């Protein structure tokens, strides 16, 4: 349990750096369901812990989380801060190949998603958001089931 402290500390730091997210979700019509995309995206983590699996140690992702959030903080660029949070949360799970899809699918809950999808109608943006979060999550859940983790 003592080894879990660095993970908690990094998640706390990255959450602090990404604390603009709720305001972005509430204040931007195209990101109104960003919170749901994030909840869907976090399902592999929630299910992993519900199953009480041993914590994976992922210093690479933790280091990327610190670096990304730090650069986003001093550079004043939200997308880096949000990416840092995604890396920090992903570091709670053991490395696996579906992470190559799941981690990038975190873009579905980042405020930058609304900007990249700005030319699409609102309904399409929401479908894309939830769809992308679901895609990454489903791949992770299928992999966890197959590996029985």
């Amino acid at each position, binding site marked *: 349990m003592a*080894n879990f402290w*660095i993970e908690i*500390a*990094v998640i706390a*730091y990255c959450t602090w750096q990404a604390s*603009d997210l709720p305001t972005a979700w509430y204040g*931007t*019509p195209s990101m109104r369901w960003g919170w749901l995309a994030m909840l869907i995206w976090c399902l592999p983590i929630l299910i992993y812990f519900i199953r009480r699996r041993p914590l994976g*140690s992922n*210093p690479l992702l*933790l*280091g990327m989380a*610190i*670096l990304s*959030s*730090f*650069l986003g*903080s*001093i*550079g*004043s*660029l*939200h997308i880096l801060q949000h990416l840092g949070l995604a890396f920090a949360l992903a570091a709670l799970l053991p490395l696996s190949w579906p992470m190559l899809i799941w981690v990038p699918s975190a873009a579905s809950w980042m405020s930058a998603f*609304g*900007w990249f999808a*700005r030319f699409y109608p609102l309904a399409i943006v929401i479908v894309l958001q939830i769809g992308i979060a679901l895609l990454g999550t489903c791949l992770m859940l299928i992999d966890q089931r197959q590996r029985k983790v």
Partner: protein
Amino acid sequence: MAKTRIGLWIALAIAIGVGLVWQFYPLPDAAQRFRDLPLYGKNYIGRNLPLVDFEKEYFRNINVLKRLYQVGDQHLFITALDGTTNRHAVHDPLYCFRGAGWELLSEKRVPMPHGDAMLLELKHEDKIQQALYWFSNGQNEYASPLRYWLEATWRRLTLGHSGPEPVLIMVQPLDKQNLDWTALIQGFPELLKL
């Protein structure tokens, strides 16, 4: 593994400490460029406009230029935003227009003396209007919000040594639907020095 975790703790402490100190570094802003924009010249005359309450709240930490100008026979509303102390207050103008309920009818890149700008045609209820915007560091004009974010971020990472702060400039006609941007640039060349 223990060494790795110690390394992560050190990296985290440095990130928090340096991050806290970094924000106190006084980055040079664009206030002087705003002050240097003349109110009158050979082909134009203008006046400052006060910020309304929600603007005072939203732009409380940033330099704002808000003026009415007559350039030739055009009456124009010109705003400029300097995000040096709050980069997040400067958004992609198109994103803001859409958020405010304007529908984009068309957009076109127009050439500027040192780059380009974006000319928008927008509709809100029964009103159709053009708007012109560009980002400027006082030397180049460009229409890409992505370039603005990268340039502004790089400036902060280099503590201002990469160059002047890019600012957002927007021009909207007051009493006509269309904006004659070539006449604007010819009649008010000082605007490009913002």
